[in-house]
């Protein structure tokens, strides 16, 4: 038996793309162009703000996807990591006049260092125990943030002005001051972060993560320094989440610790599992479920609390019928439906012909 060939190996990057890959790339490019240029024209400001949040949380989700889907490390602390990124960015934006992209980079790097510290237990723990430890750390971070508060333009190291008067908003980049422009800015940052993840998955770290996820002994036997690559995964996820925090800071203008409850990390993991941890599209689906769906329900006057039940059922559905998530299941089922409809369509004329004879 000759096994089916799949072209474009990661190791052979630079080769020409196959036809299906070209089509996929063209569809992705068209979709991104529509999101950047068309979508802001079609939506109200309410939904533009919502979609900015979708862009932010798609970055958080893609970071969590790296940990859960690529390396098999379950972290329940990502919303707290996001809060750290937002805190650092807010502090830098108030305290300095640095350009926004530089602030995002710094927020990402500082969060990355803290994320590596959070990831240290991952060197010895997996599964439920790692999830518990990261959840506890997230809880601790939330408590610290509630105590010191988010920077709001005040003086001192913390930059917090307790008098609550004349609180300046967190600034945005000059090229993206309006909501539609900031939405576009957020999408561009998200694209860069997704590209960063893709560059990792398709190269040496991606292969090492795949080995660690399937079998740590096999990874060690292949000469992979497993603790280094696990920490690398935490570093990458934290960097991306830190950058997302920086984007969030500019999006909302005012940050409060109450916006980052610990339990949100659990909901985030649920939507990431639903969206699909093995594909980048899964992160987009997860962010839509996490941010767009509640906004939609709010607009319709339905309580977003119903989503907790919906997400519970959704996770159950995905875990039992589609481990690769909705990003894999929906296109597959749609293709199956298309094939079924085509079969029906070709059968019907044949049946009609048969009856007239």
């Amino acid at each position, binding site marked *: *038996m*000759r*096994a*089916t*060939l*799949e*072209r*474009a*190996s*990661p*190791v*052979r990057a630079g080769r020409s793309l196959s036809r299906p890959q070209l089509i996929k790339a063209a569809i992705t490019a068209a979709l991104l162009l529509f999101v950047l240029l068309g979508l802001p024209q079609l939506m109200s400001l309410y939904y533009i703000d919502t979609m900015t949040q979708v862009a932010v949380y798609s970055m958080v989700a893609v970071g969590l996807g790296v940990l859960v889907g690529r390396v098999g490390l379950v972290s329940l602390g990502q919303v707290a990591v996001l809060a750290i990124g937002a805190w650092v960015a807010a502090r830098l934006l108030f305290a300095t006049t640095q350009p926004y992209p530089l602030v995002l980079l710094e927020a990402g790097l500082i969060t990355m260092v803290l994320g590596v510290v959070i990831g240290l237990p991952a060197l010895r723990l997996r599964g439920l125990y790692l999830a518990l430890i990261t959840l506890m750390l997230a809880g601790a971070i939330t408590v610290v943030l509630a105590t010191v508060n988010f920077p709001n333009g005040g003086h001192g190291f913390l930059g917090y002005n307790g008098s609550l008067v004349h609180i300046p908003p967190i600034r945005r980049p000059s090229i993206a001051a309006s909501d539609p422009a900031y939405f576009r800015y957020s999408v561009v940052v998200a694209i860069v972060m997704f590209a960063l993840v893709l560059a990792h998955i398709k190269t*040496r770290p991606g*292969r*090492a993560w*795949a*080995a660690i996820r*399937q*079998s740590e*002994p*096999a990874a*060690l*036997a*292949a*000469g*992979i*320094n*497993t603790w280094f690559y696990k920490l690398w995964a935490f570093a990458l996820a934290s960097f991306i989440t830190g950058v997302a925090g920086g984007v969030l800071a500019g999006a909302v203008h005012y940050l409060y610790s109450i916006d980052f409850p610990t339990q949100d990390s659990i909901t985030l993991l649920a939507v990431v599992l639903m969206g699909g941890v093995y594909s980048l599209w899964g992160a987009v689906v997860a962010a839509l479920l996490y941010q767009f769906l509640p906004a939609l329900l709010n607009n319709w006057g339905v309580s977003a609390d119903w989503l907790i039940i919906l997400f519970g059922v959704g996770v159950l559905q995905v875990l039992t019928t589609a481990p690769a998530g909705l990003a894999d299941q929906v296109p597959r089922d749609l293709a199956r439906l298309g094939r079924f409809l085509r079969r029906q369509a070709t059968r019907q004329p044949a049946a009609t012909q048969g009856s007239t004879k």
Partner: protein
Amino acid sequence: MIEVDGLTVRYGGVTSLADMSLTFEQGTCGLIGPNGAGKTTFFNVLSGFVRPAAGTVRAFGTDLLAMAHFRRARWGVRRTFQTEQAIEELSVFDNVAMVHEHSGLGGKSRRGDVLDAIAFTGIDVDPESPEAKVRTLGAGQRRLVEVARAVVGRPRLVLLDEPAAGLPDEETSHLADVIRRIPERTGALVILVDHDMSLVSACCATTAVLDFGRLIASGPTAAVLRDDDVIRAYLGVDQ
């Protein structure tokens, strides 16, 4: 050459290897014994997954036990597993390339070395573009992927843990042919653990026998398989 001296491994109160002293000279050497005899434990010690309670292992003059486990692979300790562990989601090429890229050999020779290793093992994929995902392959082919991972680049010590388990005769015979050629191709010392005595006889000039963690015989394979203690402890009187 591997010199094992006084190697002892204990799991709690259970002694898995008891004062094992043995030298594996060159070529392909067999290591046999009943289940639980300590064969895989010995491999795990060499790979660095298990820390022995006592003893030393010198491989080609190097103190193997002093090296971190992932560094041993870079040094040249390669292995396959009793339960096959080829990475399912990666292609055949990437599975083998992954070992090469962590062996410190540099990227220039990588593609050539990887294709050589795949061609050497005779995996049934396009030899110029082995991009089939491992999950699409059958059990025998996946075993060969593991062997290709073990022989790519510059292995010095290749540990094969029951590579023929569950394979039909035809695939076992192909595997035997591949295993026999490994020392000649790579210069590595091969240690083969298997319960298939025809495979061990076909591949190994010398064989050692473990029973309850103790070495009970070693020497030329044909003589070892006729040894009374070995027959009593492992092979049975029908052999």
